[in-house]
């Protein structure tokens, strides 16, 4: 007895109902569109500042004394004078921070000594905060040609706040 098989070619194509899938896909698309929040990437500068306590014993000989970075501001909060260890860095904003970076690099180097070096930031009360971040950037390191961060000074702290100028 011959069994008859029906040939399943193009003629027997079953149409798939795409409507539910498209519904779900558009729901997902709407959800992602509405929940998307475009925000700029942010990064951190770590600062360790315990309350000043008297330290027992002699100070460590290998420890660098903290480099004091003095930042003076005018009445509007703009940086007017930048000094590190009695050396002043003046000039246009773009050059000033590069000069500071190069000087810190020459003092502490980019090697192991940099790990123990410490910078103390002493700034006027009214100084705009962005100048402090620029100073921290200049003393912390730089971005190398390959995009890697070459670290310089890692220990950064603030001097006690100065009183506001009336």
């Amino acid at each position, binding site marked *: 007895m011959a069994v008859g098989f029906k040939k399943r070619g193009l003629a027997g194509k079953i*149409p798939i109902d*795409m409507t539910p*899938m*498209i519904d779900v*896909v*558009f729901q*997902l*698309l709407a959800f*992602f*569109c509405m*929940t*998307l*929040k*475009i*925000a*700029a*990437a*942010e*990064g*951190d*500068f*770590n*600062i*360790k*500042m*315990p*309350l000043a306590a008297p330290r027992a014993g002699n100070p460590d000989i290998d420890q660098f004394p903290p480099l004091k970075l003095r930042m003076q501001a005018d009445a509007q*909060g703009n940086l007017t004078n930048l000094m590190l260890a009695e050396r002043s860095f003046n000039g246009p904003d773009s050059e000033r921070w590069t000069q500071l970076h190069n000087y810190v690099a020459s003092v502490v180097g980019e090697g192991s000594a940099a790990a123990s070096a410490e910078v103390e930031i002493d*700034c*006027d*009360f*009214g*100084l*705009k*905060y*962005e*100048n*402090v*971040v*620029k100073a*921290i*950037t200049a003393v*912390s*390191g*730089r*971005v190398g040609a390959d*995009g890697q*961060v070459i670290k310089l000074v890692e220990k950064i702290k*603030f001097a*006690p*706040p*100065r009183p*506001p100028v009336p």
Partner: protein
Amino acid sequence: MKLKARGAEMTEIDYTPMIDMTFQLIAFFVILINFADAEQDERVQLPSSALAKPPQAPLETPITIQMVRDGSIVMGGQLYADADAIKPLLLNEQYVLESQDRSATDATIIIRAHKDAKTGLVQNVIKVCQDVGFEKFTLRAKSEAGY
């Protein structure tokens, strides 16, 4: 002349390009979406820095304090006039940490201050946190392309 009736005949639409494009869009949004509930206030414009890279791992116990341009402080979604006003909140945070067998020294205070805020006010915030017992601070900045 005979006219053919066009009733039952249906034109099939090719959905393939539309579905391709829609899936591309979904993939794009899935990659971009960030569910992390980072505290970001649009009144705070962060200073930018070439060295500010996003942290490799999330901080263990972060406490975010934000400062707007005029020196007001945003903490836990509430606006406070000055640094002293957030002291009760910090004491509360310390109490919560101690109830979890940890201390204030384990927590990290994230400071998101406006770029034009007075540095002295930022230092006042740090001082108040130190008085409560917090030691670790991190100053947040916006990432920018390196030079």
